[in-house]
Structures are given as C-alpha cells and as structure tokens.
C-alpha cells in the first residue's frame, strides 16, 4: 500500500489542474468539465481520507458528490445549450454583456 498522503497530493494536483482549466479554457463545456475534474479530485481525497481513518463516511460522501455532480450536469448543460442556441457559440468570453 502506498503512503496515503500520496493520494492527497494527487487529489490536490487534479484539483489544481481542474481549476487552471477553468481559468484558461474558453469553451463553456470544457470549463464545466474542468469543474467536474475538481469535484472528482475531491472525491479522491474523500476516499483517501476514508482509507486513512478506516471509516466509511468518506466513501459514502463520494457517492453523494457523484449524484450531485450529475444533477449539476443536467442544469449546466441546459444552460449551456440555451446559450448556444441563442449565440451559436459556447465561448464563455462571448457572453460579456454584463460588466462594469
């Protein structure tokens, strides 16, 4: 068994990659996928924590997070599709009417 701390470091790396992706990607879908990556990094951390403490809560929590993520996808996709139909674009930078 590897040192459980390594899982946490991996989780942190994934989280960082995800957040950098949100910052850099223009396509709303890709940005949204990066958010999902962040959530999954958290899942990894939760499961690792579950392992460290020998308790189940973390794993159960991961399931909850997955369900929630699925629900988020439903809403998110609905919004992105709506935007796409209006603007023929999914670039988050194009939606730039609200400012200042």
């Amino acid at each position: 068994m590897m040192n459980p701390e390594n899982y946490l470091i991996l989780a942190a790396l994934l989280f960082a990659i995800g957040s950098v992706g949100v910052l850099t990607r223009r396509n709303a879908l890709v940005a949204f996928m990066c958010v999902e990556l962040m959530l999954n990094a958290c899942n990894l951390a939760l499961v690792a924590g579950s392992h460290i403490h020998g308790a189940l809560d973390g794993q159960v929590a991961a399931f909850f997070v997955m369900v929630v993520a699925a629900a988020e996808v439903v809403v998110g996709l609905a919004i992105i599709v709506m935007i796409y139909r209006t603007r023929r674009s999914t670039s988050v930078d194009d939606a730039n009417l609200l400012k200042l």
Partner: protein
Amino acid sequence: MSSILMPVLEMAAPTLEWRALAPVLLVFAAACVGILLEAVLPRAYRFLGQMTLVFATALVSIGFLVINWRGQYGGRLAMGSIMLDGPTYFMWASLLVFGTLAFMVFSERQLNGGATTFAASAASVPGSLDEADATAARYEHTEVFPLGLFALGGMMVFLASSDLIVMFVALEVFSLPLYLLSGMARRRRLLSQEAALKYFLLGAFSSGFFLFGIAMLYVFSGSLDLAAIHTAIEGNAGSNGLVMIGLAFIAIGLLFKVGVVPFHSWTPDVYMGAPTPVTGFMAIATKLAAVGATMRVFYVALDGERWSWQPLFAVLAVLTMVVGIIGALTQSDIKRLLAYSSIAHAGFILVALVGATQTVAAGEGTSASAIMFYLAAYGFATIGAFALVTMVRNAAGEENNIDGWSGVAAKNPWVAGLMSLFMLSFAGIPLTGGFIGKWAVFTAAWRGGYGWLVIVAVLASLVAVYFYLRLIVVMFGRKEAKGVYVGNASAWTWIPVVVGAVATVWMGLVPDQVMQLATFAGGFLR
C-alpha cells in the same frame, strides 16, 4: 473487505423527527408536488394551482415552525445531520417569511400586461418565432414556483446541517434552481442567460472549493460531523496544516455565496441579469442561508481555530466593505447598485462575525443575535426595494437606469417615499431596522475585541451613505425623466413592499421583540 461491508449489513432504517422537521419537509414535499402539478394540471389552471400550493405550504410551514419553536422542539435531528437549535429556528422563520414575500413578487402579472416577469418559453431562442408564438399564446413558466421552493428548502437545510456532506448537498439543492431561475427573464433575455451561465460556472467552481475543504477536514478528523471536527481540533497536538487548508477552502466556498470580496465578482452581473423578483429572493435568502452556514461551520466546527480565522475574516471584511462601497459609488444601474450594496452589507455582517462575541451574560446580545437581527432588517428592506424596482418602468420593461428614476417622487410619492425608506435602512439611518442592525453588529464586534474594525466599518458606512442618498436625491431632487412611468402594480407586489416598510419601521422603533427572539435563540449548539 468485511470491515467495509459490516456497517452496511447493520444499517437500520433512518429515523426522522417528522414533527420537528415538518417545516422543511413540507417545503420539499410541496416542491415535488409542484413538479407533478406541472404535468397534471391543464395550462390554464397551473398558475392558480402553483400559487395555492406555494402559499398554503408557506403558511402551514410557518405554523409548524412557530408551534415547534414555542414547544422547544430541537436538538440533533435526522440522525445527526440537522441541528435544530435557536439560530436555526430564527433563520428558518426568516427564510420562510422572506421566501413567501419573494414568491408574491414572482406572482405579479398586472405590471407586465397580464404575464409574469418570467420568459414565456425559456427554451426558445430570443427573438425567434418560437418565442413570439409562446408569448402570443400567453405561455408561462409556472415551474418557477417549485424551483423556488426547492431553493428555499435547500437553504433551510444548508444553514441547519450539522454534517458537512449534507451541507454540500443542500448547497447544490438551493444553488441549481437559482441558476435556472436567473436565466428566465422575459425581457433582456440575453443578459439573463449570460447571468445564468456566469452564476452557474462560478457557482460550480466555488462548490469545488467548498468540497475540497470538506475533504481536507475529513482527512484531518475522520468525520464529517461538525461537533466531531471540533473535538478533533481541540484534541490535536500535531500539525494543523490540513485544518488550515480545509478551513481556507470551506471559507472560500461559503463566502462566495455570501458575496464577500474577492469572491464577489458574480454578484453585480447576476443581480443585474436575473429577473428582478429572483434577484430580490437571492439577495436576501442566499445571503441569509450562507451567513447562517458560515456561522455554523466556523462557530461550531472551527471554533478552536478562532485565532486563525478571525484575522482572516477581519481582512476580508475590510476588503468587502471597501470594494462594495466604492464600487457602488459610480453605478448607473439600480440593480447593480443594490448588488454592490449587498456586497457592502456582507462586509458589515462579517464585522460582527469576526467579533464572535458568544460569551456574555444571559439576555445580552451576541454576535449571532446581532447578525440575525441584521439579516432580518436587511431582508425586509431588500425584498421591498427589489419589489419597487419592478414598478418603475419604461416602454421596454423595467427602468433600471438610475437616471430614469429622476423625479419619481413627482410621479408617485409613495414609491419614492418607500424606496427612500429602504435606502435609509440600507444606509443605517435611525428609525429604520437597518440602523438597529448596524448598531448591534458594531456592538457585537467591539465587545469581541475588534474596536478598530468597527471604526473602519463606521468610516465605510459614511461613504456608503452617499450612494444611497444619491438615489433619494435623484428621485426627489431632479426633474422628471421622460418616458418613464410608475406601473400600476397589484397587491402581489404591494404586499411585500408594505410588509417590508412596516417591518423596517417597526424594527427601527420597537426592535425589542425581534431582538429578544434573536437573543434568546442563543448560540449555535454542537
């Protein structure tokens, strides 16, 4: 493997304290029923049906709440996932009242020529034939009511949860409907959709942070339970690095919802783009729920790390007040102005939160009671103000440009007078609830040892007065703007306005009842 499976095998049916949880369960139940109604009822009856359902639920919920409160039901409920303590009662009551008032504004159809302020068909492309058809057929999205109820229920759970994962789920339960509601404006649909997208993306981003924080705390303590985390921190002799990381990320997630600088960027855009009744609902309900949850997490779970997070919150409070107020100074859109105002108010709330006065003699105000009072006062003014925003109109819909509000006093002195009242309450001028609230949070902060923060807050509110005044000056001191009229609203808009006004004055003149309620709600239980 067996060790993993064992608890599953032993799992018993969960127990629920039905009566104590009735207020929140009813809201969720009604939301589900509302979805069913959409499927079952013919279009012509849906609006009426939904409204009946919503307001009946609200009444019954409030009734249960009051009876339970008087009966002192409470404690750790739902197998340790909900904590029904005094603050929960107070904030549930506030949420239900503000939710009900906000839903009334949802129901306004007279202002808009017989339709609600929501899009006839949110799925149709703006400017398309589909949209025109839907409008001509007088379609309406009566789903807004169940969505609103889901959001409300989510918020109630959010601030009451004593388990971090429940809190996360509740966060999403109330956030997702709000993302949708933001995108459903009938007019200026491009803006509305953009608001929804931004809110959604950034909201999801922030919930990622929140979740990561939860994970770190879990890794540290081995539990998701707030009280257990507290115990773990108290008993910790080694490094607290994980706690710090968890604390930071959870704070980011929560403060995003509160609208604290530098996690506030979404606020002006979303407030401006969303349909005004939804903005009104969000402005108070989201803030209240998020502040409640923040207090719960930090006072209950992270109390032992107080010396770490107090300076952090103090810095953020200063930043928030400064950015919120300075940002508001030059706004030309009234909804953006109110958005920046809400940021500034988040700062004032943080001031008291930092002070964290929790141990004073019985019957004396604490940080929690001050903040709850503040939120109640702020809520009534917010609901009223946003309802009034819907009433000042031009040919294209709402007149949100502040210049368009010139000389409203001459057109309708009541609208101008009441709007001024709400502005004065926001500004914290005496004889309004806003003043008592502001004074109470300052007192709590100073008693908690943060006198310097109070001085900063006082100076900040001095600058803040200017932009609230500006609106009053515009309404009373300028010539009437052309092409702007004050719409003839129905009781659905007027009731929230009048209730807001009466409550604002009431809480300004005789605040004792509400203050006693907030004070005797006591502290957060572990």
